[in-house]
């Protein structure tokens, strides 16, 4: 299973990637909105994306309105570009404060840190 991790926290990104690799997943990771814009056209190559909502926006190519997080804008772009891709949203933001509607069964919200344990992530990936 091919997974893309999008999280600006590089340490978390690295450890999560390693943890999933240990479990046999094929993992790529990016840590900025500018990197996302570079790989956006290749989204369909991924079976699942693990996306952090709270990221800074380091590119003018991505317009982030005042009332949305960078990750929320990226989420909307992902479901438009690659609707079949499963998305696991990992975030410290409370679920009831999300400014996006989660897209049916393809999107799951996992709250950091309790909901983002490896076992739980894997459970959702393999559903």
């Amino acid at each position, binding site marked *: 299973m091919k997974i893309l991790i999008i999280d600006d926290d590089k340490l978390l990104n690295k450890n*999560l990637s390693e943890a999933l690799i240990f479990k046999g997943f094929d993992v790529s990771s990016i840590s900025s909105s500018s990197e996302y814009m570079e790989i956006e056209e290749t989204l369909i190559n991924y079976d699942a994306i693990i996306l952090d909502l709270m990221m800074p926006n380091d590119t003018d190519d991505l317009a982030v309105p005042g009332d949305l997080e960078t990750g929320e804008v990226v989420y909307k772009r992902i479901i438009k570009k690659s609707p079949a891709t499963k998305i696991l949203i990992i975030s410290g933001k409370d679920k009831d404060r999300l400014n996006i509607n989660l897209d049916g069964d393809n999107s799951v919200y996992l709250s950091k840190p309790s909901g983002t344990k490896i076992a739980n992530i894997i459970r959702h990936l393999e559903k």
Partner: protein
Amino acid sequence: MYIGPQNTSFHKKVKIMSAVIIFYKVQNHYLLVSVDGKESVFIPSKEMNLLIKKKQITKKLLTQCPKFSRVVEKEVGIIQELDNYVAYLVHSKVPTIIKLLFRKQYPLFVESQGEKIINIFRLNSRNKLLSRLSEESASLEDYIESFCKYTMSNGYSLWLYDYRTKVYTYQFGTFHPSKDYVYYSENSSFNEILDSHCSSIMREPSNSEIFNAKANGIKSMVRIKIPMSKSEDAILSFYSRLEKFVFDNALIALVKQFVAMKIAYSLTENEYVMEKTTKELLKIGIDDLQLFSNELVILIAKKLQYEAVTLLLLTPNKKYLKVISSYNLGFNGKPDKYILYPLSKDSLTVKVFKSDEVSVIYDLNDVDHSNIFNEETENNPKSWIGIPIQIEGKSVGVLRLKNKFRCMEGNEKTVCPPRPIDRHNAYLISQLVNSQITAIFKLEELNNNLEIQSNFSKVFRHELRAPIATIGYASENIQSAIEKYTISEKDKRYLDLKIKDIDTLSNRLGFIVKTYTIDDLISQSAEVIDRVSLLQDIIFPLSNLFGHYYKDQYNVTFDIDHNSMMGTYIKGNTDLCNIIMNSVMDNAAKYIENKNKPVKIYSQKNNDNCDIFIESYSIEIHDEEKEVIFDKDGRGKVAIYKKKDGSGIGLWLCKEIISRLDGNISLERRYDPVIFKLQFPLGASHENINNR
């Protein structure tokens, strides 16, 4: 008009009837009084002499006594002149009028009848006065007008002197003054009575009188000083066209008594209005400064009858006073113009702002027209009251009240000068508004602080989440590496222990972060659902999270009766229930005395509730501490003595939160074992869920 007695025998002989009019001499005037004492007419002596000469008395009396003048056939002239009376004879055709009197009887007749009539007149006058003074609806001006009539004055005026501002302000009167206010420093004619020890003076008007006395024919006056308060006196003047105008002491005392009483009564009446207004003012919400200000100005204007009310507050940069709210007939609420009064410029508003006086009254024309103000609300600040608004002794604004307009001749309007009631109101309003404004500012300060704290808390929590998650991944990675790579058994066991430590720490940190979302959970009205599984959602997560921790930290084990909890659903919020449960479990473990006995947790259904019992052999809770332990900062004496650390959220907060979930926490047993009971409303049953 006096008409003499009838003499029937003589009457028949005389075809033309005669009547005698008796005039009473009053200091170069002649007073004609009707027989019933109800009507009177004054004629100056010069004029009288002319009328007698021309035999035109009846013409003069035409308007006052039309009946008499119609029946007079001919005026004869004065038939008798005494010290106090003059008898004037007229002929009349009307038979009912009187007979001719015998000449030799005139003096006694005239004197006795004259005295009788004058006394009746005086009695009637006094009765009329007292009757008017006793009318509740009579105003202060009505009172003074009554005295004026009683004393046959030709005019009156009332001024007030404020010792603080050293200004005389005109209230009302017969002759309108050239200006409504006079400074003490202008050496006006009022200063004489103010500076003297006498409370009354009687003299002719001086050239420095505030109205043109000569033009009005005033030749003498009586001026009375009436103390009103420590800082205020009333100056009441009665004017006369007589050259000698005198009030006796009894009359002066009467005037002072009633005028002072009326002012006091007005203040009392006003107290009632103020009380009602105060109650309404206190009902205005103080959450929002603008809304409060808008309602404040409208309430004060309408209830206390002011033409305009304006509230100004200091801007954050402390350079200007800004109009926050303003009310007048054509305008109310937040002004649509940005109206500012620079503190650097010396205007009236700025003077009030800098004043230490609780209530200050200015009746000066604002000559500094450099103020920027809305014409409709701020125009002509003559005669308004300025109240400094202070919070804990520091000036923060000004409340201005402008009195009602009164119409002058034509369309001209002028503002009524400040009344005694206005000063009284100003003091009461000041106290009330200051306390309300202080409360608003304090509330805003509190909200700001809470917001700062809340923001800090959110940032803090947010920052912790990622590192905690990363710790978890790192721990997993070490575990995976152990499994994958060749490591000695001994090293493996060691690393396993470390991983367990890291996991425990990570779990605990995660739970602490969750606990600190409690303010969000409570303030946003936690979502309550009726399918919180006691086992799956509350007990298991906590046991998994803290099983090792309690064992390692406190050497305590938990004995959980899962069977008693099977299929039990409660109504609550998962996160909040976890936090409460954790706190109680933490307490049980922390205060345990007999570590050989595990902490027992079991549940029972009880009507519509689920009772969860946490039983531990912990330190005794004394009888008198049963309630104290649920108080804020309340701890048992033994706990304090044994220097046990406090952690979790405390029993007080547990109680607060569980009550919001319609539950309860109680101490069921104080020792051997200590038993706490958490009670939650039962939610949907397992059977009910399956049937959906």
